[in-house]
C-alpha cells in the first residue's frame, strides 16, 4: 500500500525532484571541474536551480498571472486569491536573478584577471605556475 502512497507522493512533488537534480549537477560541476569557466557555469546552474525552486513554491493550479484587470470605475469586486499565482516568490526571484548575474559578472572579471596573469584557465596549470614563481 505504501508503495502507491509513495508513488503519488513522488508524482505530486515532481518539480522538487527536478530542482534537486539540477542543483546536484551545478554543485558537481563547481567542485569537480578543472576549468575555471566550467566552474562558473556550474555556479550559474546551481543558482538557477534555486530560482526554479522558489518559483515552483508560488505556483497554484489554474492560477493566472497576478495582474488584476483594471476594472474601470474602480468598483472592486472581491479578488479571490485562489485564481492568482502567488506573486511573492516571483519578486524574490527577481532579486535572486539580479544577484546571480552580478556575481557572474564579478567572477568573469576575476577570471580575466587570472588569464591576464597566467595565460591559462586550467586550475592545475595555474597552481603549477604559482609553485614555480
Amino acid at each position, binding site marked *: 500500500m505504501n508503495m502507491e502512497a509513495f508513488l503519488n507522493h513522488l508524482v505530486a512533488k515532481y518539480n522538487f525532484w527536478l530542482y534537486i537534480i539540477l*542543483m546536484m549537477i551545478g*554543485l558537481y560541476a563547481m567542485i569537480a571541474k578543472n576549468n575555471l569557466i566550467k566552474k562558473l557555469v556550474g555556479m550559474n546552474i546551481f543558482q538557477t536551480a534555486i530560482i526554479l525552486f522558489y518559483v515552483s513554491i*508560488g505556483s*497554484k493550479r489554474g492560477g493566472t498571472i497576478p495582474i488584476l484587470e483594471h476594472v474601470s470605475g474602480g468598483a472592486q469586486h472581491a479578488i479571490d486569491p485562489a485564481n492568482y499565482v502567488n506573486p511573492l516568490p516571483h519578486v524574490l526571484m*527577481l532579486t535572486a536573478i*539580479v544577484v546571480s548575474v552580478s556575481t557572474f*559578472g*564579478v567572477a568573469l572579471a576575476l577570471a580575466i584577471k587570472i588569464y591576464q596573469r597566467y595565460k591559462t584557465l586550467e586550475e592545475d596549470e595555474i597552481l603549477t605556475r604559482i609553485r614555480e614563481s
Partner: protein
Amino acid sequence: MILSGGLLLYATKDFPSWGDPTSPASTHVSPRYLKKSLEETRVPNVVTSILADYRGYDTMFETTVIFCAGVACFMLLRTFEKRETDHYYRHVPTGITIHIKGQREIPIESKEFEKIDAIWTPYDLIINTVSRFLVPFIQLFALYVIAHGHHSPGGGFQGGVILGASMIVLAIAFNLRTAVRRLGERIDSIMSALGVFIYSGIGALCVLLGANFLDYKALAQILPIDRVAARSDGILGVEIGVGIAVMAVMICVYNNVASEGRYDEGL
C-alpha cells in the same frame, strides 16, 4: 555533495504538493498583497507593487548589488595606462585596412579614413546599416517596458537591460570605439550612480517629509495628488531610477569585460 542532495530529498517528504492553492505559502501572506494592492497602490501588476512598494527596500539593495557589480568590474579590470602600439586605419568606401607600424599618425585628415583599434575588427556593411536602423526602435520598446511596468509584466530591470542591450548591439555591430564615442565612460558611470541615487533619493525624500523610509504616501505632500496615487507615482519614479542604473551598469560591465579594461579594440 551527495550528503546535501540526500538531505534535500529527505526534506521534500512533507512539502505541500505542487501547485495546490491551500499551501501555507500562498495562504499566509500573499493573499493580502493580492487583495489590497489594487486599492492601496492602484497598480494592477501586483508583482511590481510588491517589488517597488511593499518590499521596496529589497529592490533598493538589489539595484545596489547591480551597482556593486559595475563598480567591481570597473575597479578590477580598468587600466588607464596607454599601450603604445602601431596604428590601423580603414578606408571607408573600399573597406581596405591599412596597418602603419611605429608611432606616426596618418597626415591627411580625410573623411574616407576611419581609425580602428585592431586588424580584425569586423566590417560588414549590411549589419552596420541594419543595426543603425534598428537601435532606436529597441530603445523605444525598452522605454515602453519601463513605463508600463504597472499594467503589463515588465519594469525597471527588464527595461534597463533592453536599453543596455541596444547600446551593446552598437558595440558589436560596429566596434567598441564607436559605441564609446556615443556613450562615453564618464557619462555612463555617472548615470549608473545617478540611477541608484534616484531610487534611494526618493526613499530619503520620504524620510525628510516625515514618513518612514521609502513610504511613498509622504510624496502626496509635495505632489498635487492624493496618497494612493502618490504611491503609484513613487513606484514609477523608482522604476525609472532602476532602469537608468541597470542600463549604465550593463554597458560598463560589457565595455570592461570585452576589452579587458583597455577600452580600445572591440569584440
